[in-house]
């Protein structure tokens, strides 16, 4: 064990102590799910699964925004990109994600005007510089990203831009976790909660997980030692029969979150139903653009009809995202599906579970 620790951890002695305490606290079977793609990567990369006692199972959840985006939504974005005069701008992560019949990368290769931007504000600048083009920003992400899109829409309104709109595929995390807890096919005893999402929304939205469903959660940073610390806090709560939302990341997270970010989200968006890959539609977990900003809503401006969506054959990405199976349970994993030739989105995004397992572990089995 210590060989692993010294390779991955800056303070092996400290990590060793935390690992010992986790072993001591694991007095019963505990299924712990991490719901942040960065945690997924860090757990895989640092071999944290191998440090766990038999009693603790670590599951990866729906924490990769690109992965949970449904095929129908990707098809819709592609259909909009095909409209005359449209510039579709989005984050680089979205390009290679397969929809039912194509991907944005393939559309770009076929001559559509699809551009990768670092910030939604870059898309706004394109709209200002190219007034003859219809610039559509494809907005994907959780609460960390949602306020950036909200403020961009407010800016577009303030600057009176008539050729800018947003296709909002945003999703919000806390209610989705409640849906997972209610899913009879998945057993989850505790959540490792995402650090930077929580910087924005604070701890309050997670409270019902603990108070209504008795499932504890710990907001955790992404350093390996932070994650071990989070697992320890969860194991101790479960051992003691407690359920609370705790913060192992006090350096950055306050209970209230960032009030300016929360206000911007509330001004521009209202809760809507959203389709999560593998989970289905979860009421109230999407963010649609409010009527007062309807002029900036690409879903309203481009009433296109993409063909019926279909799922790639044999891909179990949806089950992986619910924590129902592990990536190497998929028959295609590592054979028909690799990061070079991904079949499903869980293998495309670097923070997707399949990609993380493939890249950092002995194909997940080690």
């Amino acid at each position, binding site marked *: 064990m210590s060989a692993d620790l010294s390779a991955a951890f*800056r303070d092996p002695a400290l990590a060793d102590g935390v690992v010992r305490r986790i072993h001591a606290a694991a007095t019963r079977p505990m299924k712990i799910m991490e719901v*942040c*793609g*960065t945690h997924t*990567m*860090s757990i895989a*990369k640092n071999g944290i699964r191998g440090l766990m006692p038999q009693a603790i199972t670590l599951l990866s959840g729906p*924490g*990769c*925004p*690109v992965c949970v985006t449904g095929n129908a939504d990707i098809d819709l974005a592609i259909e909009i990109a095909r409209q005359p005069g449209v510039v579709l701008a989005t*984050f*680089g*992560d979205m390009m290679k994600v397969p929809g039912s019949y194509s991907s944005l990368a393939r559309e770009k290769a076929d001559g559509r005007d699809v*551009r*990768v*931007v*670092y*910030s*939604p*504000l*870059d898309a706004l*600048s*394109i709209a200002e*510089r190219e007034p003859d083009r219809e610039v559509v920003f494809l907005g994907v*992400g*959780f609460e*960390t*990203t949602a*306020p*950036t899109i909200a*403020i961009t829409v407010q*800016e577009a309104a303030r600057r009176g831009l008539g050729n800018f709109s947003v296709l909002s595929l945003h999703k919000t995390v806390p209610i989705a976790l409640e849906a997972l807890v209610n899913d009879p096919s998945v057993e989850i005893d505790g959540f490792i909660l*995402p650090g*930077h*999402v929580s*910087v*924005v929304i604070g701890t309050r939205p997670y409270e019902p997980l603990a108070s209504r469903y008795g499932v504890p959660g710990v907001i955790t940073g*992404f*350093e390996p030692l932070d994650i071990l610390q989070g697992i320890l806090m969860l194991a101790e709560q479960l051992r003691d029969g407690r359920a609370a939302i705790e913060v192992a990341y006090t*350096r*950055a997270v306050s209970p209230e979150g*960032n009030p*300016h*970010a929360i206000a*911007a989200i509330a001004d521009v968006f209202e809760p809507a139903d959203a389709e999560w890959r593998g989970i289905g539609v979860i009421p109230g977990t999407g963010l649609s653009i409010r009527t007062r900003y309807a002029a900036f809503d690409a879903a309203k401006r481009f009433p296109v009809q993409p063909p019926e969506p279909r799922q790639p054959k044999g891909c179990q990405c949806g089950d992986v995202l619910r924590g129902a199976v592990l990536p190497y349970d998929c028959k295609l994993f590592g054979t028909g599906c690799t990061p070079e030739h991904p079949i499903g989105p869980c293998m495309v*995004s*670097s*923070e997707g579970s399949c990609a993380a397992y493939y890249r950092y572990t002995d194909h997940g089995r080690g």
Partner: protein
Amino acid sequence: MCLGIPARIVGEPNENGMAQVEILGVTRWVSTHMVPDAKVGDHVLVHAGFALEVISEQFALETLELLREAGIVEDEASALEAEPTP
């Protein structure tokens, strides 16, 4: 994708609420709409071109080092260059 990257504010915000920051060795404009009280010299967590929150210098340095160890810095640095238009 939900990560914030530490940066240091190096200039006053302009009339659009945009301020220059130093981030991963690159100078870039970011929005300060979510951190209206931030001052030149403050460290902030930046995501998708927006400062999300003011953080302490120590937290900024720690986070940067961790991102570097995790190999995430390269991904983000190349994303910073992704701005497509001249």
